[in-house]
């Protein structure tokens, strides 16, 4: 399942970094899940911080039913004056940078 902002939150570089290390499969899977959900939380936070509160309910109703719907981005672009796609990208890049740093910090010496 994809969501309407999947094209803005690219996690391939994080996954690639993680795959370079020797980690048991079960732990790797768990880490993947933690990383993607962390990015989701931050992305949704950015979106709702920008979207007027009066439109949250409508947005969340559609998101719950059809998370991939292009209607969602259309709502954001209509209701938010700033460049929301850029805001999502910037935040996800920042979080990915933090996650990559955590991975490198965990290298066994």
């Amino acid at each position, binding site marked *: 399942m994809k969501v309407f902002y999947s094209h803005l939150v690219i996690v391939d570089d994080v996954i690639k970094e993680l*795959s370079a290390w*020797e980690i048991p499969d079960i732990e790797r899977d768990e*880490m*993947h*899940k933690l990383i993607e959900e962390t990015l989701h939380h931050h992305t*949704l936070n950015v979106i709702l911080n920008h979207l007027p509160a009066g439109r949250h309910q409508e947005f969340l109703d559609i998101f719950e039913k059809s*998370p991939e719907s292009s209607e969602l981005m259309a709502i954001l672009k209509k209701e938010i004056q700033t460049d929301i796609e850029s805001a999502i990208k910037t935040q996800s890049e920042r979080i990915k940078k933090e996650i990559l740093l955590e991975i490198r910090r965990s290298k066994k010496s």
Partner: protein
Amino acid sequence: MVKPALNSESLRQRLKIKHLSSQTLLFAHHPHVKRLIASGVLASSLLVGPAQSTITHASLPLPAMNDVALVSSFDLHEAIKHQLVAVLPTTVQPLNESQESDISKKLHDIYGLHASATLEGNKLNTSYGLIGLEQNLPRFPGDNRPNTTPGRGAWGYWTYSARDLTEKMVQQEKYYVAVQTLYLPDWNTRLAYLRDWYKYRKVALVNPKNGKIIVAVVADSGPAAFTGKHFGGSPEVMNYLQMKDGKQRGPVVLFFVDDPSDEVPLGPLEKNLEKGPLLLAGGH
């Protein structure tokens, strides 16, 4: 080729903290999204490369939302800032009981602080007003620090000798505010009681523009109504709240702190008082 080893347990813990932090931040800002998390909409939707396992979220022993401290002072500030947007009117004006009660709850939820607009039946004419910069107050006769008022504060000197100045007094003067007790409707009729009640009364001030919060004491009366301001703040209070708009004034929420045991420290509040140390330092 053999892959280099990683301290996977350490990384897993770090990622769990990040995950928990992001979820806590999201729920603090937007509690209505909890249903999305519960419905699983936000699961397994970004990763399209490697094969996915069927590992379940239930395998992660994460504490419940209510047991989690927010992660950094930045997050705390952002959380209260966004919460206040929904409550405060667009212009500075006295709040109604519902708004004040709502803010009290948010201060407790986010900062673990018990603060309210009315305490022990006492209430200022407004709990949401403009604050302006004040000078330092003389703590004892001859306290000639730079930028100190020539006259005493409304409650006089803290002590009559520099030798008797305690750390508590230093902190009280450092983090003081002036409130308009002189305009209270019952100030003249209940002067003796109110004068004692307000003396060094602990208050919390929140700058709704940046979410910064500081605990101070009432140590002076004012400012005069003609100034258009409702509160005054010491240089340290104003500096922390970042009231630097050129006019040296700005909107602030000011609530009484319910702290009968005198346990809430004066100064910037950058953690949840009931949930202890931050889970994660820095990161923002």
